Protein backbone atom coordinates (compact mmCIF):
# COMPACT_ATOMS: atom_id res chain seq x y z
CA UNK A 1 0.00 0.00 0.00
CA UNK A 2 1.39 3.39 -0.81
CA UNK A 3 0.86 6.43 1.36
CA UNK A 4 -0.55 8.19 -1.69
CA UNK A 5 -3.44 5.75 -1.89
CA UNK A 6 -4.60 6.14 1.68
CA UNK A 7 -4.45 9.91 1.78
CA UNK A 8 -6.20 10.25 -1.58
CA UNK A 9 -9.24 8.17 -0.65
CA UNK A 10 -12.10 10.02 1.07
CA UNK A 11 -13.50 7.90 3.87
CA UNK A 12 -17.13 7.96 2.81
CA UNK A 13 -16.81 7.02 -0.89
CA UNK A 14 -17.67 3.43 -1.70
CA UNK A 15 -15.16 1.65 -3.89
CA UNK A 16 -16.96 0.64 -7.07
CA UNK A 17 -17.27 -3.12 -7.64
CA UNK A 18 -16.35 -4.23 -11.12
CA UNK A 19 -19.31 -5.59 -13.06
CA UNK A 20 -19.04 -9.39 -12.80
CA UNK A 21 -20.90 -10.06 -16.02
CA UNK A 22 -18.83 -7.58 -17.98
CA UNK A 23 -15.66 -9.09 -16.56
CA UNK A 24 -16.71 -12.60 -17.56
CA UNK A 25 -17.51 -11.45 -21.08
CA UNK A 26 -14.18 -9.67 -21.41
CA UNK A 27 -12.29 -12.70 -20.12
CA UNK A 28 -14.25 -14.93 -22.49
CA UNK A 29 -13.35 -12.73 -25.46
CA UNK A 30 -9.70 -12.53 -24.42
CA UNK A 31 -9.74 -16.29 -23.89
CA UNK A 32 -11.01 -16.78 -27.43
CA UNK A 33 -8.25 -14.56 -28.82
CA UNK A 34 -5.63 -16.40 -26.76
CA UNK A 35 -6.91 -19.73 -28.09
CA UNK A 36 -6.64 -18.48 -31.70
CA UNK A 37 -3.07 -17.24 -31.18
CA UNK A 38 -2.09 -20.47 -29.41
CA UNK A 39 -3.62 -22.53 -32.21
CA UNK A 40 -1.86 -20.49 -34.88
CA UNK A 41 1.43 -21.00 -33.05
CA UNK A 42 1.05 -24.73 -33.60
CA UNK A 43 1.25 -24.28 -37.36
CA UNK A 44 4.98 -25.16 -37.53
CA UNK A 45 4.19 -28.42 -35.71
CA UNK A 46 1.45 -29.13 -38.24
CA UNK A 47 3.86 -28.50 -41.12
CA UNK A 48 6.49 -30.64 -39.39
CA UNK A 49 4.10 -33.57 -39.17
CA UNK A 50 2.43 -33.19 -42.56
CA UNK A 51 3.73 -35.73 -45.04
CA UNK A 52 5.67 -34.25 -47.91
CA UNK A 53 4.04 -34.55 -51.33
CA UNK A 54 4.98 -37.92 -52.79
CA UNK A 55 7.63 -37.71 -55.52
CA UNK A 56 6.66 -38.70 -59.05
CA UNK A 57 7.29 -42.47 -59.29
CA UNK A 58 8.43 -42.06 -62.88
CA UNK A 59 11.00 -39.46 -61.91
CA UNK A 60 12.73 -37.07 -64.25
CA UNK A 61 13.07 -39.55 -67.07
CA UNK A 62 9.39 -40.38 -67.06
CA UNK A 63 9.93 -44.10 -66.52
CA UNK A 64 10.61 -46.52 -63.66
CA UNK A 65 12.51 -49.78 -63.76
CA UNK A 66 10.51 -52.94 -63.07
CA UNK A 67 11.91 -55.05 -60.25
CA UNK A 68 11.73 -58.85 -59.91
CA UNK A 69 10.58 -59.43 -63.49
CA UNK A 70 13.09 -60.01 -66.28
CA UNK A 71 12.18 -59.81 -70.01
CA UNK A 72 12.75 -63.58 -70.28
CA UNK A 73 9.99 -64.21 -67.75
CA UNK A 74 7.39 -62.59 -70.02
CA UNK A 75 8.85 -63.70 -73.36
CA UNK A 76 6.09 -66.18 -74.30
CA UNK A 77 2.37 -65.57 -74.65
CA UNK A 78 0.57 -66.28 -71.41
CA UNK A 79 3.62 -65.67 -69.20
CA UNK A 80 3.23 -63.11 -66.46
CA UNK A 81 4.39 -62.23 -62.95
CA UNK A 82 4.00 -59.87 -60.00
CA UNK A 83 6.82 -57.43 -59.51
CA UNK A 84 7.49 -53.89 -58.36
CA UNK A 85 8.31 -50.35 -59.52
CA UNK A 86 9.22 -47.27 -57.48
CA UNK A 87 8.05 -48.90 -54.25
CA UNK A 88 4.70 -50.03 -55.66
CA UNK A 89 3.39 -53.29 -57.06
CA UNK A 90 3.06 -54.09 -60.79
CA UNK A 91 1.86 -57.03 -62.86
CA UNK A 92 3.59 -57.57 -66.22
CA UNK A 93 2.43 -60.25 -68.66
CA UNK A 94 2.26 -61.08 -72.33
CA UNK A 95 -1.35 -61.65 -73.44
CA UNK A 96 -2.71 -64.16 -76.02
CA UNK A 97 -2.15 -61.70 -78.87
CA UNK A 98 1.52 -61.38 -77.96
CA UNK A 99 1.24 -57.82 -76.52
CA UNK A 100 3.22 -56.94 -73.43
CA UNK A 101 0.88 -55.50 -70.81
CA UNK A 102 1.41 -53.98 -67.41
CA UNK A 103 -0.94 -52.87 -64.65
CA UNK A 104 -0.36 -51.27 -61.27
CA UNK A 105 -1.30 -54.20 -59.03
CA UNK A 106 -3.14 -52.13 -56.40
CA UNK A 107 -6.72 -53.43 -56.29
CA UNK A 108 -9.25 -50.63 -56.69
CA UNK A 109 -11.38 -52.05 -53.90
CA UNK A 110 -9.27 -51.78 -50.76
CA UNK A 111 -5.67 -51.68 -51.94
CA UNK A 112 -4.38 -55.24 -51.73
CA UNK A 113 -1.95 -56.34 -54.45
CA UNK A 114 -3.72 -58.32 -57.13
CA UNK A 115 -2.19 -61.66 -58.23
CA UNK A 116 -1.45 -62.72 -61.82
CA UNK A 117 -3.33 -65.97 -62.50
CA UNK A 118 -3.01 -66.41 -66.25
CA UNK A 119 -6.29 -65.53 -67.98
CA UNK A 120 -7.40 -63.40 -65.07
CA UNK A 121 -5.98 -61.20 -62.34
CA UNK A 122 -7.35 -62.18 -58.94
CA UNK A 123 -7.34 -60.31 -55.65
CA UNK A 124 -6.93 -62.69 -52.71
CA UNK A 125 -8.33 -60.28 -50.14
CA UNK A 126 -11.97 -60.11 -51.16
CA UNK A 127 -12.16 -62.09 -54.39
CA UNK A 128 -12.08 -59.18 -56.83
CA UNK A 129 -11.40 -60.35 -60.38
CA UNK A 130 -10.02 -58.49 -63.43
CA UNK A 131 -9.59 -59.69 -67.02
CA UNK A 132 -6.53 -59.26 -69.21
CA UNK A 133 -7.59 -55.77 -70.20
CA UNK A 134 -7.60 -54.81 -66.53
CA UNK A 135 -11.36 -54.45 -66.44
CA UNK A 136 -13.07 -55.40 -63.19
CA UNK A 137 -15.31 -58.35 -64.04
CA UNK A 138 -16.30 -59.85 -60.69
CA UNK A 139 -16.30 -59.08 -56.99
CA UNK A 140 -16.18 -55.77 -55.10
CA UNK A 141 -13.67 -53.68 -57.14
CA UNK A 142 -15.48 -50.59 -58.49
CA UNK A 143 -13.00 -49.62 -61.21
CA UNK A 144 -10.49 -51.22 -63.58
CA UNK A 145 -6.79 -51.45 -62.69
CA UNK A 146 -4.49 -48.61 -63.74
CA UNK A 147 -2.74 -49.60 -66.93
CA UNK A 148 0.90 -48.68 -67.50
CA UNK A 149 3.01 -48.50 -70.61
CA UNK A 150 5.66 -51.22 -70.53
CA UNK A 151 8.75 -51.65 -72.69
CA UNK A 152 12.13 -53.26 -72.69
CA UNK A 153 15.38 -51.30 -72.77
CA UNK A 154 18.89 -52.76 -72.58
CA UNK A 155 17.76 -56.00 -70.98
CA UNK A 156 15.48 -54.45 -68.36
CA UNK A 157 11.75 -53.87 -68.25
CA UNK A 158 10.45 -50.33 -67.70
CA UNK A 159 7.01 -48.95 -67.02
CA UNK A 160 5.73 -45.42 -67.67
CA UNK A 161 2.50 -43.51 -67.75
CA UNK A 162 0.15 -44.66 -70.49
CA UNK A 163 0.04 -41.35 -72.30
CA UNK A 164 3.11 -39.24 -71.72
CA UNK A 165 6.82 -38.76 -72.28
CA UNK A 166 9.35 -41.53 -71.77
CA UNK A 167 12.07 -43.19 -73.67
CA UNK A 168 11.32 -46.39 -75.48
Amino acid at each position, binding site marked *: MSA*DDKSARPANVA*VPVPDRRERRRFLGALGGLAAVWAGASLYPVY*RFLSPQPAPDPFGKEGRAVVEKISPAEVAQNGMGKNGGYAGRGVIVFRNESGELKAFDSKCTHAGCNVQFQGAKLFCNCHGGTYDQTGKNIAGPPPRPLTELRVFEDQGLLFVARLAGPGKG
Partner: protein
Amino acid sequence: MNYPVWNVPILGSGLVVAIIAIIHILISHLAVGGGAFLAVAEWWASRQADPERIRAFLRKFVTYFLVYTTVFGATTGVGIWFSIQLANPEATSLLIHQFVFAWATEWVTFIGELTVLYFYYYGWHTNSRRMQLVLAILYFVIAWFSLFIINGILTFMLTPGGWTLENRDIVAGFFNPGYWPALFIRTLVMLTLAGLFGFVVATRVDDDLKERIIGFAARFVVPAALLMPLFAAWYWFSLPVETHTMWHNGIVGVAGGRLEAITRYSWLAAITGGLIVIGTLIIAWKPRATTTTAAIALLATAQLSMLGGEFFREMARKPFVIRGVLYSNGLWKAPSKAPVALDQPYFESTRWEPDHATPGSAAHGEWIYRLQCASCHTLDGYRSLAARTAQWTPGFGDRFLQNLNQQGVMPPFQGNSQDRAALVAYLISLHGKPVAAAEVEATLAKEAKP
Protein backbone atom coordinates in the same frame (compact mmCIF):
# COMPACT_ATOMS: atom_id res chain seq x y z
CA MET B 1 34.09 0.73 -48.25
CA ASN B 2 33.58 1.95 -44.75
CA TYR B 3 36.60 3.60 -43.23
CA PRO B 4 37.79 3.70 -40.56
CA VAL B 5 36.89 0.08 -39.99
CA TRP B 6 35.19 -0.58 -36.68
CA ASN B 7 36.49 -3.98 -35.72
CA VAL B 8 34.44 -5.61 -32.95
CA PRO B 9 35.67 -9.12 -32.17
CA ILE B 10 33.17 -11.93 -31.54
CA LEU B 11 30.05 -9.77 -31.90
CA GLY B 12 30.75 -7.73 -34.97
CA SER B 13 29.74 -4.09 -35.37
CA GLY B 14 26.29 -4.93 -36.71
CA LEU B 15 25.40 -6.96 -33.66
CA VAL B 16 26.42 -4.10 -31.39
CA VAL B 17 23.92 -1.90 -33.21
CA ALA B 18 21.34 -4.68 -32.91
CA ILE B 19 21.73 -5.09 -29.15
CA ILE B 20 21.43 -1.37 -28.48
CA ALA B 21 18.57 -0.97 -30.91
CA ILE B 22 16.52 -3.91 -29.66
CA ILE B 23 16.65 -2.56 -26.11
CA HIS B 24 15.78 0.89 -27.44
CA ILE B 25 12.77 -0.40 -29.35
CA LEU B 26 11.11 -1.72 -26.22
CA ILE B 27 11.66 1.56 -24.39
CA SER B 28 10.71 3.86 -27.25
CA HIS B 29 7.52 1.99 -28.10
CA LEU B 30 6.63 1.94 -24.42
CA ALA B 31 7.28 5.68 -24.26
CA VAL B 32 4.69 6.35 -26.94
CA GLY B 33 2.18 3.77 -25.77
CA GLY B 34 2.52 5.05 -22.23
CA GLY B 35 1.33 8.41 -23.47
CA ALA B 36 -1.86 6.82 -24.75
CA PHE B 37 -2.20 5.02 -21.43
CA LEU B 38 -1.87 8.26 -19.46
CA ALA B 39 -4.39 10.08 -21.61
CA VAL B 40 -6.99 7.31 -21.54
CA ALA B 41 -6.39 6.68 -17.84
CA GLU B 42 -6.88 10.36 -17.00
CA TRP B 43 -10.20 10.25 -18.80
CA TRP B 44 -11.17 6.93 -17.20
CA ALA B 45 -10.23 8.18 -13.74
CA SER B 46 -12.53 11.18 -14.09
CA ARG B 47 -15.45 8.77 -14.63
CA GLN B 48 -14.77 6.66 -11.53
CA ALA B 49 -16.30 7.27 -8.12
CA ASP B 50 -12.81 7.62 -6.60
CA PRO B 51 -10.79 9.55 -9.21
CA GLU B 52 -8.14 10.68 -6.76
CA ARG B 53 -7.22 7.10 -5.91
CA ILE B 54 -6.77 6.23 -9.60
CA ARG B 55 -4.72 9.38 -10.08
CA ALA B 56 -2.52 8.39 -7.18
CA PHE B 57 -1.79 5.21 -9.12
CA LEU B 58 -1.12 7.29 -12.25
CA ARG B 59 1.35 9.39 -10.32
CA LYS B 60 3.26 6.20 -9.50
CA PHE B 61 2.96 5.09 -13.13
CA VAL B 62 4.31 8.31 -14.58
CA THR B 63 7.18 8.41 -12.07
CA TYR B 64 8.46 4.99 -13.14
CA PHE B 65 7.62 5.84 -16.73
CA LEU B 66 9.47 9.14 -16.78
CA VAL B 67 12.62 7.75 -15.24
CA TYR B 68 12.65 4.56 -17.31
CA THR B 69 11.92 6.09 -20.70
CA THR B 70 13.95 9.28 -20.44
CA VAL B 71 17.06 7.75 -18.93
CA PHE B 72 17.22 4.46 -20.83
CA GLY B 73 15.44 5.75 -23.90
CA ALA B 74 17.82 8.63 -24.34
CA THR B 75 20.87 6.52 -23.58
CA THR B 76 20.03 3.79 -26.06
CA GLY B 77 18.70 6.25 -28.64
CA VAL B 78 21.95 8.17 -28.65
CA GLY B 79 23.69 4.80 -28.49
CA ILE B 80 22.10 3.96 -31.82
CA TRP B 81 23.44 7.18 -33.30
CA PHE B 82 26.96 6.42 -32.14
CA SER B 83 26.95 2.81 -33.22
CA ILE B 84 25.41 3.22 -36.67
CA GLN B 85 27.87 5.96 -37.55
CA LEU B 86 30.73 3.65 -36.68
CA ALA B 87 29.23 0.52 -38.20
CA ASN B 88 28.12 2.04 -41.47
CA PRO B 89 29.12 5.67 -42.08
CA GLU B 90 28.20 5.41 -45.76
CA ALA B 91 24.60 4.44 -45.15
CA THR B 92 24.23 6.87 -42.27
CA SER B 93 25.51 9.63 -44.51
CA LEU B 94 22.99 8.79 -47.22
CA LEU B 95 20.10 8.72 -44.76
CA ILE B 96 21.10 12.00 -43.19
CA HIS B 97 21.49 13.77 -46.52
CA GLN B 98 18.22 12.47 -47.92
CA PHE B 99 16.08 13.00 -44.87
CA VAL B 100 17.79 15.89 -43.12
CA PHE B 101 14.53 17.71 -42.33
CA ALA B 102 12.95 14.51 -41.10
CA TRP B 103 15.84 14.03 -38.67
CA ALA B 104 15.60 17.65 -37.58
CA THR B 105 11.85 17.35 -36.98
CA GLU B 106 12.47 14.18 -35.00
CA TRP B 107 14.70 16.09 -32.59
CA VAL B 108 12.02 18.75 -32.26
CA THR B 109 9.50 16.06 -31.32
CA PHE B 110 11.91 14.65 -28.72
CA ILE B 111 12.29 18.06 -27.10
CA GLY B 112 8.58 18.68 -27.38
CA GLU B 113 7.44 15.43 -25.83
CA LEU B 114 9.92 15.68 -22.95
CA THR B 115 8.89 19.27 -22.23
CA VAL B 116 5.21 18.35 -22.17
CA LEU B 117 5.93 15.32 -20.00
CA TYR B 118 7.81 17.44 -17.48
CA PHE B 119 4.95 19.94 -17.32
CA TYR B 120 2.59 17.02 -16.78
CA TYR B 121 4.71 15.50 -14.03
CA TYR B 122 5.82 18.62 -12.12
CA GLY B 123 2.47 20.31 -12.54
CA TRP B 124 0.70 17.32 -11.02
CA HIS B 125 -0.58 19.12 -7.94
CA THR B 126 -0.98 22.61 -9.39
CA ASN B 127 -2.50 21.99 -12.83
CA SER B 128 -6.21 21.51 -13.21
CA ARG B 129 -7.43 18.03 -14.05
CA ARG B 130 -8.46 19.26 -17.46
CA MET B 131 -4.99 20.66 -18.11
CA GLN B 132 -3.47 17.33 -17.13
CA LEU B 133 -5.68 15.53 -19.63
CA VAL B 134 -4.71 18.02 -22.34
CA LEU B 135 -1.00 17.61 -21.55
CA ALA B 136 -1.28 13.82 -21.62
CA ILE B 137 -2.99 13.91 -25.01
CA LEU B 138 -0.44 16.39 -26.34
CA TYR B 139 2.38 14.20 -25.14
CA PHE B 140 0.92 11.19 -26.92
CA VAL B 141 0.37 13.07 -30.17
CA ILE B 142 3.91 14.47 -30.24
CA ALA B 143 5.43 11.12 -29.25
CA TRP B 144 3.43 9.27 -31.88
CA PHE B 145 4.57 11.83 -34.42
CA SER B 146 8.15 10.86 -33.64
CA LEU B 147 7.20 7.34 -34.73
CA PHE B 148 5.55 8.78 -37.84
CA ILE B 149 8.89 10.27 -38.83
CA ILE B 150 11.38 7.57 -37.90
CA ASN B 151 9.16 4.96 -39.53
CA GLY B 152 9.72 6.60 -42.90
CA ILE B 153 13.49 6.43 -42.61
CA LEU B 154 13.51 2.92 -41.23
CA THR B 155 11.15 1.41 -43.81
CA PHE B 156 12.97 3.30 -46.60
CA MET B 157 16.02 1.15 -45.95
CA LEU B 158 14.14 -2.06 -46.82
CA THR B 159 11.74 -0.74 -49.47
CA PRO B 160 13.03 2.51 -51.01
CA GLY B 161 9.97 2.48 -53.25
CA GLY B 162 10.07 5.06 -56.02
CA TRP B 163 13.25 6.68 -54.70
CA THR B 164 16.42 6.17 -56.73
CA LEU B 165 19.85 7.77 -56.61
CA GLU B 166 18.96 9.60 -59.81
CA ASN B 167 15.54 11.04 -58.96
CA ARG B 168 16.09 11.39 -55.18
CA ASP B 169 12.33 11.57 -54.71
CA ILE B 170 12.28 11.86 -50.92
CA VAL B 171 8.50 11.86 -50.66
CA ALA B 172 8.30 8.60 -52.57
CA GLY B 173 11.15 7.23 -50.48
CA PHE B 174 9.61 8.34 -47.20
CA PHE B 175 6.08 7.10 -47.90
CA ASN B 176 7.36 3.85 -49.41
CA PRO B 177 5.31 0.64 -49.80
CA GLY B 178 6.41 -0.68 -46.41
CA TYR B 179 5.60 2.54 -44.56
CA TRP B 180 1.91 2.19 -43.74
CA PRO B 181 1.77 -1.45 -42.61
CA ALA B 182 4.82 -0.87 -40.39
CA LEU B 183 3.22 2.26 -38.91
CA PHE B 184 0.12 0.35 -37.89
CA ILE B 185 2.09 -2.61 -36.56
CA ARG B 186 4.28 -0.40 -34.40
CA THR B 187 1.30 1.55 -33.10
CA LEU B 188 -0.37 -1.70 -32.04
CA VAL B 189 2.84 -2.78 -30.31
CA MET B 190 2.95 0.53 -28.47
CA LEU B 191 -0.53 0.11 -27.09
CA THR B 192 0.24 -3.44 -25.98
CA LEU B 193 3.40 -2.39 -24.16
CA ALA B 194 1.48 0.35 -22.38
CA GLY B 195 -0.92 -2.24 -21.01
CA LEU B 196 1.92 -4.51 -19.91
CA PHE B 197 3.71 -1.64 -18.16
CA GLY B 198 0.39 -0.83 -16.49
CA PHE B 199 0.37 -4.39 -15.11
CA VAL B 200 3.84 -3.92 -13.62
CA VAL B 201 2.93 -0.68 -11.83
CA ALA B 202 -0.42 -2.14 -10.75
CA THR B 203 1.38 -4.82 -8.75
CA ARG B 204 2.86 -2.06 -6.55
CA VAL B 205 -0.49 -0.91 -5.14
CA ASP B 206 -3.08 -2.54 -2.88
CA ASP B 207 -5.17 -5.47 -4.05
CA ASP B 208 -8.45 -3.67 -4.72
CA LEU B 209 -6.88 -0.98 -6.84
CA LYS B 210 -4.57 -3.55 -8.42
CA GLU B 211 -7.55 -5.55 -9.64
CA ARG B 212 -9.23 -2.53 -11.21
CA ILE B 213 -6.07 -1.22 -12.88
CA ILE B 214 -5.29 -4.65 -14.30
CA GLY B 215 -8.80 -4.89 -15.71
CA PHE B 216 -8.29 -1.47 -17.31
CA ALA B 217 -4.77 -2.17 -18.62
CA ALA B 218 -5.74 -5.54 -20.11
CA ARG B 219 -7.87 -3.75 -22.68
CA PHE B 220 -4.75 -2.21 -24.20
CA VAL B 221 -3.63 -5.66 -25.34
CA VAL B 222 -6.83 -6.35 -27.26
CA PRO B 223 -6.21 -4.14 -30.35
CA ALA B 224 -2.96 -5.98 -31.15
CA ALA B 225 -4.48 -9.38 -30.36
CA LEU B 226 -7.25 -8.66 -32.86
CA LEU B 227 -5.55 -6.69 -35.59
CA MET B 228 -1.89 -7.71 -35.67
CA PRO B 229 -2.42 -10.67 -38.05
CA LEU B 230 -4.10 -8.30 -40.52
CA PHE B 231 -1.31 -5.75 -40.55
CA ALA B 232 1.35 -8.45 -40.50
CA ALA B 233 -0.19 -9.87 -43.68
CA TRP B 234 -0.22 -6.39 -45.26
CA TYR B 235 3.42 -5.96 -44.26
CA TRP B 236 4.29 -9.36 -45.75
CA PHE B 237 2.88 -8.32 -49.12
CA SER B 238 4.87 -5.09 -49.07
CA LEU B 239 8.16 -6.99 -48.73
CA PRO B 240 10.41 -7.56 -51.75
CA VAL B 241 10.13 -10.96 -53.44
CA GLU B 242 13.72 -11.81 -52.42
CA THR B 243 12.65 -11.64 -48.79
CA HIS B 244 9.79 -14.04 -49.49
CA THR B 245 12.24 -16.45 -51.09
CA MET B 246 14.59 -16.15 -48.12
CA TRP B 247 11.75 -16.90 -45.74
CA HIS B 248 10.51 -19.94 -47.66
CA ASN B 249 14.05 -21.32 -47.85
CA GLY B 250 14.29 -21.11 -44.09
CA ILE B 251 11.35 -23.40 -43.47
CA VAL B 252 13.43 -26.45 -44.23
CA GLY B 253 16.14 -25.63 -41.87
CA VAL B 254 19.77 -25.05 -41.54
CA ALA B 255 20.67 -25.03 -45.20
CA GLY B 256 23.43 -22.70 -44.22
CA GLY B 257 24.36 -19.47 -45.88
CA ARG B 258 20.86 -18.59 -47.03
CA LEU B 259 19.89 -16.39 -44.07
CA GLU B 260 17.33 -19.03 -43.10
CA ALA B 261 17.35 -17.72 -39.54
CA ILE B 262 14.84 -15.16 -40.81
CA THR B 263 12.11 -17.79 -40.67
CA ARG B 264 12.94 -18.77 -37.11
CA TYR B 265 12.91 -15.10 -36.02
CA SER B 266 9.50 -14.53 -37.57
CA TRP B 267 8.10 -17.49 -35.65
CA LEU B 268 9.76 -16.24 -32.47
CA ALA B 269 7.94 -12.94 -32.93
CA ALA B 270 4.61 -14.60 -33.69
CA ILE B 271 4.67 -17.26 -30.98
CA THR B 272 5.82 -14.91 -28.23
CA GLY B 273 3.10 -12.54 -29.41
CA GLY B 274 0.63 -15.31 -28.68
CA LEU B 275 2.28 -15.86 -25.29
CA ILE B 276 1.61 -12.21 -24.45
CA VAL B 277 -2.09 -12.69 -25.18
CA ILE B 278 -2.16 -15.84 -23.04
CA GLY B 279 -0.23 -14.12 -20.25
CA THR B 280 -2.62 -11.17 -20.32
CA LEU B 281 -5.52 -13.60 -20.04
CA ILE B 282 -3.99 -15.23 -16.94
CA ILE B 283 -3.27 -11.87 -15.32
CA ALA B 284 -6.74 -10.51 -16.10
CA TRP B 285 -8.31 -13.72 -14.80
CA LYS B 286 -6.42 -13.69 -11.47
CA PRO B 287 -5.32 -10.09 -10.92
CA ARG B 288 -4.80 -10.43 -7.18
CA ALA B 289 -2.40 -13.34 -7.66
CA THR B 290 -0.23 -11.38 -10.10
CA THR B 291 3.22 -10.58 -8.75
CA THR B 292 5.60 -7.89 -10.00
CA THR B 293 7.90 -10.67 -11.22
CA ALA B 294 5.09 -12.17 -13.29
CA ALA B 295 4.24 -8.78 -14.83
CA ILE B 296 7.89 -8.09 -15.63
CA ALA B 297 8.16 -11.57 -17.16
CA LEU B 298 5.36 -10.60 -19.55
CA LEU B 299 7.16 -7.39 -20.48
CA ALA B 300 10.34 -9.41 -21.02
CA THR B 301 8.37 -11.73 -23.30
CA ALA B 302 7.37 -8.67 -25.29
CA GLN B 303 11.06 -7.79 -25.58
CA LEU B 304 11.71 -11.27 -27.03
CA SER B 305 8.90 -10.74 -29.51
CA MET B 306 10.42 -7.46 -30.60
CA LEU B 307 13.82 -9.11 -30.85
CA GLY B 308 12.31 -11.57 -33.31
CA GLY B 309 10.54 -8.88 -35.28
CA GLU B 310 13.53 -6.55 -35.55
CA PHE B 311 15.96 -9.33 -36.50
CA PHE B 312 13.46 -10.42 -39.15
CA ARG B 313 13.25 -6.89 -40.53
CA GLU B 314 17.02 -6.46 -40.64
CA MET B 315 17.70 -9.85 -42.24
CA ALA B 316 14.98 -9.22 -44.82
CA ARG B 317 17.17 -6.54 -46.34
CA LYS B 318 20.46 -8.41 -46.53
CA PRO B 319 22.92 -8.17 -48.22
CA PHE B 320 21.91 -4.52 -48.63
CA VAL B 321 21.84 -1.74 -46.08
CA ILE B 322 19.73 0.33 -48.47
CA ARG B 323 17.96 -2.25 -50.58
CA GLY B 324 18.85 -2.18 -54.24
CA VAL B 325 21.16 0.78 -53.71
CA LEU B 326 23.96 0.18 -51.23
CA TYR B 327 25.37 -3.11 -50.00
CA SER B 328 26.22 -3.44 -46.30
CA ASN B 329 29.93 -3.47 -47.06
CA GLY B 330 29.85 -0.13 -48.83
CA LEU B 331 29.59 -1.29 -52.43
CA TRP B 332 27.17 0.79 -54.47
CA LYS B 333 24.89 -1.16 -56.78
CA ALA B 334 24.99 -0.03 -60.41
CA PRO B 335 23.69 2.31 -61.71
CA SER B 336 25.23 4.18 -58.80
CA LYS B 337 27.06 7.34 -58.03
CA ALA B 338 30.47 5.72 -58.32
CA PRO B 339 30.24 2.93 -60.89
CA VAL B 340 32.77 0.30 -60.05
CA ALA B 341 34.15 -2.32 -62.38
CA LEU B 342 34.10 -5.27 -60.11
CA ASP B 343 37.14 -7.00 -61.56
CA GLN B 344 39.62 -4.16 -61.18
CA PRO B 345 42.24 -4.41 -58.45
CA TYR B 346 40.30 -3.72 -55.32
CA PHE B 347 42.45 -1.01 -53.80
CA GLU B 348 42.18 1.11 -56.93
CA SER B 349 38.50 1.72 -56.18
CA THR B 350 38.72 2.25 -52.45
CA ARG B 351 38.80 5.71 -50.97
CA TRP B 352 41.74 4.93 -48.73
CA GLU B 353 44.46 2.40 -49.28
CA PRO B 354 46.16 0.97 -46.24
CA ASP B 355 49.91 1.34 -46.83
CA HIS B 356 50.78 -2.13 -45.72
CA ALA B 357 48.21 -3.87 -47.87
CA THR B 358 50.29 -3.94 -51.05
CA PRO B 359 49.45 -6.90 -53.28
CA GLY B 360 51.50 -9.89 -52.32
CA SER B 361 51.91 -8.83 -48.71
CA ALA B 362 50.44 -10.82 -45.87
CA ALA B 363 48.21 -7.90 -44.92
CA HIS B 364 46.61 -7.73 -48.38
CA GLY B 365 44.15 -10.54 -47.72
CA GLU B 366 43.45 -9.34 -44.22
CA TRP B 367 42.55 -5.85 -45.44
CA ILE B 368 40.23 -7.23 -48.11
CA TYR B 369 38.47 -9.15 -45.32
CA ARG B 370 38.24 -6.01 -43.18
CA LEU B 371 36.93 -3.74 -45.90
CA GLN B 372 34.63 -6.14 -47.77
CA CYS B 373 33.59 -8.82 -45.28
CA ALA B 374 33.94 -7.52 -41.74
CA SER B 375 30.77 -5.45 -42.01
CA CYS B 376 28.78 -8.67 -41.61
CA HIS B 377 31.21 -11.45 -40.67
CA THR B 378 33.49 -11.80 -37.68
CA LEU B 379 36.43 -14.14 -37.93
CA ASP B 380 35.42 -16.62 -35.24
CA GLY B 381 32.38 -15.14 -33.54
CA TYR B 382 29.04 -14.06 -35.04
CA ARG B 383 28.59 -15.41 -38.61
CA SER B 384 32.09 -16.80 -38.20
CA LEU B 385 34.13 -16.87 -41.39
CA ALA B 386 36.52 -19.42 -39.91
CA ALA B 387 33.60 -21.81 -39.40
CA ARG B 388 32.17 -21.17 -42.84
CA THR B 389 35.46 -21.73 -44.68
CA ALA B 390 36.66 -24.71 -42.66
CA GLN B 391 36.58 -27.03 -45.69
CA TRP B 392 37.94 -24.53 -48.22
CA THR B 393 40.52 -25.47 -50.82
CA PRO B 394 42.09 -22.80 -53.05
CA GLY B 395 40.03 -23.92 -56.05
CA PHE B 396 36.74 -24.02 -54.16
CA GLY B 397 37.38 -20.67 -52.51
CA ASP B 398 38.28 -18.98 -55.76
CA ARG B 399 35.17 -20.28 -57.54
CA PHE B 400 33.01 -19.37 -54.56
CA LEU B 401 34.23 -15.77 -54.61
CA GLN B 402 33.64 -15.51 -58.34
CA ASN B 403 30.01 -16.58 -57.85
CA LEU B 404 29.45 -14.84 -54.56
CA ASN B 405 26.36 -12.89 -55.60
CA GLN B 406 24.59 -15.83 -57.22
CA GLN B 407 22.34 -16.85 -54.33
CA GLY B 408 21.32 -13.24 -53.76
CA VAL B 409 22.32 -13.15 -50.10
CA MET B 410 25.87 -11.84 -50.61
CA PRO B 411 27.25 -8.81 -52.46
CA PRO B 412 29.44 -9.47 -55.49
CA PHE B 413 33.15 -9.75 -54.84
CA GLN B 414 35.18 -6.68 -55.75
CA GLY B 415 38.64 -7.36 -57.04
CA ASN B 416 40.77 -9.20 -59.57
CA SER B 417 42.23 -12.69 -59.37
CA GLN B 418 45.11 -11.48 -57.20
CA ASP B 419 42.67 -10.02 -54.69
CA ARG B 420 40.71 -13.27 -54.67
CA ALA B 421 43.83 -15.31 -54.11
CA ALA B 422 44.88 -13.02 -51.27
CA LEU B 423 41.54 -13.37 -49.52
CA VAL B 424 41.41 -17.13 -50.05
CA ALA B 425 44.93 -17.45 -48.63
CA TYR B 426 43.95 -15.36 -45.62
CA LEU B 427 40.81 -17.40 -44.92
CA ILE B 428 42.55 -20.76 -45.30
CA SER B 429 45.29 -19.53 -42.95
CA LEU B 430 42.68 -19.08 -40.24
CA HIS B 431 42.52 -22.83 -39.78
CA GLY B 432 46.09 -23.46 -38.78
CA LYS B 433 48.96 -23.47 -41.22
CA PRO B 434 49.54 -20.01 -42.73
CA VAL B 435 49.21 -20.01 -46.51
CA ALA B 436 50.61 -17.26 -48.74
CA ALA B 437 48.65 -15.70 -51.60
CA ALA B 438 51.39 -16.73 -54.01
CA GLU B 439 50.87 -20.39 -53.06
CA VAL B 440 47.16 -20.11 -53.75
CA GLU B 441 47.78 -18.50 -57.12
CA ALA B 442 50.23 -21.24 -58.00
CA THR B 443 47.73 -23.96 -57.02
CA LEU B 444 45.02 -22.31 -59.10
CA ALA B 445 47.30 -22.00 -62.09
CA LYS B 446 48.20 -25.68 -61.86
CA GLU B 447 44.56 -26.76 -61.61
CA ALA B 448 43.64 -24.56 -64.55
CA LYS B 449 46.00 -26.40 -66.88
CA PRO B 450 44.00 -28.87 -68.99
